[in-house]
């Protein structure tokens, strides 16, 4: 009596191709990835047809939104050096621990007299902290000093010029931006960048 063989099909699928694709995508994302930095205020960047990418280092951003200005510097060492110099300017010193904590802050948005207090907070509390922005008035001139000290620090550490970019909210009224530009021009920074997103903006059609 011949036994009838019932061919048993395996339910296992060949995963090789899927695995290949998955890792290919993964590699792509890791290569192109840049960690998203949270903006202290919601900033909707205006669109333009500019293709030039923003530089990776020796770079500082002035974020402007809701009438407030924030200052962010790329690079841990430059951040630390800037804070030390700011401390000298405002007659205060920071412990190495405070410097380390400061070097993780991507964007500064508190007046300098609150800096010790702000650094002491945990990362979560720093996010929740009601940041008033860096004062831009001519009396304290804090934004001016931050920019100048950051430029000095970049020259000292990297022997390069700090590139400054303004990251403004689309809806921001021009006088606030003008304020920031005036601060830059006061220290003879006449060339800077405006950060934009790729796309057709301001009602303009995409490029032909």
């Amino acid at each position, binding site marked *: 009596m011949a036994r009838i063989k019932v061919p048993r099909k*395996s339910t*296992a699928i060949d*995963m*090789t191709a*899927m*695995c290949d694709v*998955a*890792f290919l*995508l*993964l590699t792509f*994302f*890791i290569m*192109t*990835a*840049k*960690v*998203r930095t949270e903006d202290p205020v919601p900033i909707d*960047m*205006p*669109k*333009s*047809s*500019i*293709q*030039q*990418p*923003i*530089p990776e280092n020796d770079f500082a951003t002035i974020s*402007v939104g809701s009438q407030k200005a924030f200052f962010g510097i790329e690079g841990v060492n430059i951040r630390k050096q800037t804070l030390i110099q700011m401390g000298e300017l405002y007659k205060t010193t920071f412990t190495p621990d405070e410097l380390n904590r400061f070097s993780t802050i991507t964007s500064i948005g508190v007046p300098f007299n609150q800096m010790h207090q702000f650094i002491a907070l945990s990362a979560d509390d720093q996010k929740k902290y009601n940041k008033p922005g860096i004062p831009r008035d001519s009396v304290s001139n804090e934004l001016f000093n931050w920019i100048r000290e950051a430029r000095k620090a970049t020259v000292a550490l990297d022997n390069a010029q700090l590139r400054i*970019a303004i*990251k*403004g*909210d*689309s*809806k*921001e*009224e*021009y*006088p606030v*931006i003008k304020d920031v*530009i*005036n601060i*830059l*021009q*006061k220290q003879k920074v*006449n*060339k*800077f*960048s*405006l*950060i*934009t*997103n*790729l796309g057709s*903006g*301001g*009602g*303009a*059609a995409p*490029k032909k």
Partner: protein
Amino acid sequence: MAELDTSGGGKHKGGKVRSKKQSTRVDLTAMVDLAFLLITFFIMTTTLAKPKAMDLTMPDKDDKTKDQLAVKASSSLTLLLGSNDKLEWYLGEAGKSAPTIIGYGPNDLRKLLVEKKADIEKATGKPMIVLIKPSSKSNYKNVVAILDEMNIVNVQSYAIVDILPIEVTDLQKNGLYNDTK
């Protein structure tokens, strides 16, 4: 899940005793799971559309005016940025000719820039100089849009300058000086 495929290889040459061939297959399910998990993580935490940097050079704000040249009235086009996403333009000097209201669309602003650029170059032989004057009621998006148009239309010389009171009055007259918010 990780079963061994014991069906053996494809060909066995008629031999009666089948030697059990160990399969070289590895179960990849876990690996794929991990890969997709990582992909998800990277998609979530990264920005794909990298922001771009638009270079802007402002005119030197030196008080000494000795090395500054006056802009020729015949080759200058002035854009006054008002509220409500509208702007005004005029040729030559302020107050001499009535400004025209225009929008930011490609059929408005870009067409104007292309036309005037050709006109001015033909008439004077000099490149067109565009003076951008954002009023206090214009927003940042408009300024960026204008600068972008300058790049698209390839206007070499342009500058952001302060608006004159007479021009503000004109914007007010045309209802382009309102608070947007």
